[in-house]
């Protein structure tokens, strides 16, 4: 991991966390513009945090639509997401009003 992940990447990883997803699902569930989601997916894929696989051609044909490209987390990605969530919660706790907010 060269650099800690930003919020955008974490939200995308989070959207993929519970299974597999294709681009539009990530766009709608995160509410981020498609111009952010797809390049970020590309970057995450290149960094080995997500992997993609093409849907089975026959399965798609049965539903009469082009085959989709699904994204899923790699073990590294899952780890990076957990790490990022920890980091973000720490930041959030620091920012909460009243000396770092509730602790324990």
């Amino acid at each position, binding site marked *: 991991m060269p650099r800690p992940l930003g919020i955008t990447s974490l939200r995308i990883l989070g959207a993929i966390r519970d299974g597999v997803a*294709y*681009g*539009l699902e990530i*766009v*709608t569930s995160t*509410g981020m*513009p*498609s*111009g*952010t*989601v*797809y*390049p970020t997916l*590309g*970057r995450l894929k*290149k960094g080995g945090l997500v992997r993609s696989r*093409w*849907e089975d051609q026959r399965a*798609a044909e049965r539903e009469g*639509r*082009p*085959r*989709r*490209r699904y994204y899923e987390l790699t073990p590294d990605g899952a780890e990076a997401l957990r790490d990022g969530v920890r980091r973000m919660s720490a930041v959030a706790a620091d920012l909460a009003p009243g000396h770092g907010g509730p602790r324990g």
Partner: protein
Amino acid sequence: MLVRALLALAGLLTPAARRQEWREEWAAELDALEAARASGTKGLPTRLGFVAGAFPHALWMRTEGWTMDSVLHDVRYAGRLLRRAPGFTAVAALTLALGIGANASIFSLVNGLVLRAPAGVEAPERMVQVARSYESDPRWDNFSWPALQLIGREARTLSGVAGYQGGAFAVGRGIDTERVFGEYVTGSYFDVAGVRPHVGRLIQPGDDVEPGGHPVVVLSHGLWTRRYGGDPELVGRTIPIGNQPYEVIGVTPPGFSGVESIGTPPQLWIPTMQHPGFGGQLVFEEWGASWIDVVGRLAEGVSFEEAEASMELVSARLREAAAVHEDILVLIAPGVGLDPEEAVEARQLSTILLLIVGVVLLVTCTNVANLSLARATGRRSEVAVRMALGAGRSRMIRQLVTESALLAALATLAAVPIVLAAGSVLPAVFPYTLSVSVHADTRVYAFLGATGVLAGLLFGLAPAWAVSRRDAIVALREGSATGGRTRTRLRDVLVVSQLGLSLGLVAGAALLGRSVLNARTAEPGFEPVGLSATAIDLFSTGRYDAEGGAAFLAALHAEASEAPGVRSATLANQMPIAGGHSRASVRPAGRDDLGFEAEYVVVGPDYFETLGIPIVRGRALRGFDDEPERVVVVNEALASMFWPGQTAVGQEVERGGERWRVVGVAGDVQMRSLRARPNPAVYYPAQHAYSPWMILHVSGEGGRSVDADMLRGVVAGLDPALPVTGVTDLHSALTASMGETRTIGWLVALFAGLAMVLAVVGLYGLVSYGAAERVREIGIRIALGARPESLVRLILARGIAIAILGVGVGFAVSLGLGSALRGLLFGVGQNDPTTLVGASVVMLSVAALAAWIPARRASRVDAAVSLRDE
């Protein structure tokens, strides 16, 4: 369609090796979006917004392997190359800047007029315009005072309803008096519009209660700074308005100029209760009156659709209360600025203008692409050497695209001053008075940037692709000058499209020009030459009752008819083309099924004679005291509508519960616009239809307009205090009514000229280049005894062939542009063959000349020299 095209365009940006995979993914995503939309899923992005993301995605893939160093290297290298060819750089950047600047300028106009709500209005998307219409006669009209009150009470879905009505006010005293356009507004107006005071306070409901009891005024920021030096102490002091002291209570924030986008912007606001109508006239009580514009604001949590549905109830209440017009409707339209009728026109005009500048952008891009291609020819060996040294094709394309991008960036910067200048020039030449400002905001700059990128793509990609083809290497190896067949073909295509596009513009300009000329000689149904008119407003003085007013008008008619240089004079409540238009319901007596809102024209003596309107059958209307019975004259359009195939004279019409006997039929008059069909009209004698607002029409002797000062003198002789605002020359007004056509005509002519020069230069360059490539062949032919004429023909033939192809493309462009311009044309068809052929002939002649010059030069090649050079 657009979405697919955008996707295909974005696909071109991806690296070829991964393009297939990219396309497949986006096809599936788009399909998924369509499916989700069809199933009604919430929270989906718009198609366009979604596909816009394909561009960053494609760019990301393309630039994935790039390092900052290599990008900087490319930019530096491109910069060096452009500096080394300052002539090319300047011409290309300026040409592009014109195309980009023209687009962004027109967009700034469209933005100010159509896309942006009037400035200073809070949450304009929550505002609505309220209008009166009829089931049998759809329209968009304003209300009477009682109707406004009723809507305020009954429209529960609106949190507030406000009325306003424009008027001219005399501000100041003596020679310091200035006529200022302002508005009477209800106490709710500023609250509904969400305007907060810049200084002091604004008009509130408490300021609009008692007739004549609230002499207070709110000034616009502009009037306050211009006339009063922005003095904050002015608040609380009084200023004279129309001979009455008004207390200045506040100033609106800068930028606020009412809730309308078209028309003279108001500079002061006065409570409606100060309207002179409260001095005893009927206007405020009469349900049937129509004078106050109404806007409202949607209540918290109410959607526009809910409010729209609730208007049915309001309509029903209005019908009960007014007990007239069984089919009256209260309509609302979202937003403020343009009413629906204006919005349709503004959108059409915007589309036409954007289409025209779009064509101009295409022409400039093809021109620069052509220049770049020509220049690339000179760079073949450079490219070939770099490719031979191991630069990949994609690396070469990247280098060339960087150059194009740099050029596009330069051009976009150079376009900024054009856009800024347009902010002050466009409103001045625009055929309507704009109350909104046309300045460049973020949206305009975003459009400018996007146009720059698009232009860069348009003119940059093709040359890059052509130059870096494999045959460049072959060219190097063979050392021959003929390595660019693709390039030459591409240049042919570019010149053909340039010629075609500019022919389209030339034909468009010619159509508009002919329309303006036609309008000059048009027959509007009346004689405009020598006809002047001036509005007489007895109402705002508050000193005339119906009897006194009628006596004054009779005296005015007598005086004006006797004045020197006057052939004939009359009075009427509206003048053709120029204004005062009003309509009223009328039906044939005893026919409940057939009613129509015809032009409502109240006329004094000598009306038809003064305006030169022919009486086709029966007689004209007589003087003020000579029509004891209720009689009317109708026009031919109404006669044929009400009594087809019968004699109209002797029939009766019904209006307002009274019967009027038709004594004559007059010729049709273009009452509102030259382009529209004449409306059915009924002419009522002033004796039975008194109106305090009349227009004095005077026809001069021998077709000469009478002196405006003389007219003012006549009015002042009878009542020195009666304001005479302006004298309209009907002939000029008629010409001015074609203002849109003329403005756009000039604009198109300007762009057509520009495009034609560019296209012809392109053709000239192409033929010269073709000749240069064949120098050796020509040398041989000459050595073998070919005559110069045959050589000229040889080279010319290619140029002419291209020009003819261009004319073919131009026909298609002209047909498209012609149908877009349809609404602006007058007396000439959109596909007028004469115009098309004429424009083609002009185009072909110029093109032939442009091809002949280089052909002639080539034929004089010295055979010995050309062969020795090889």
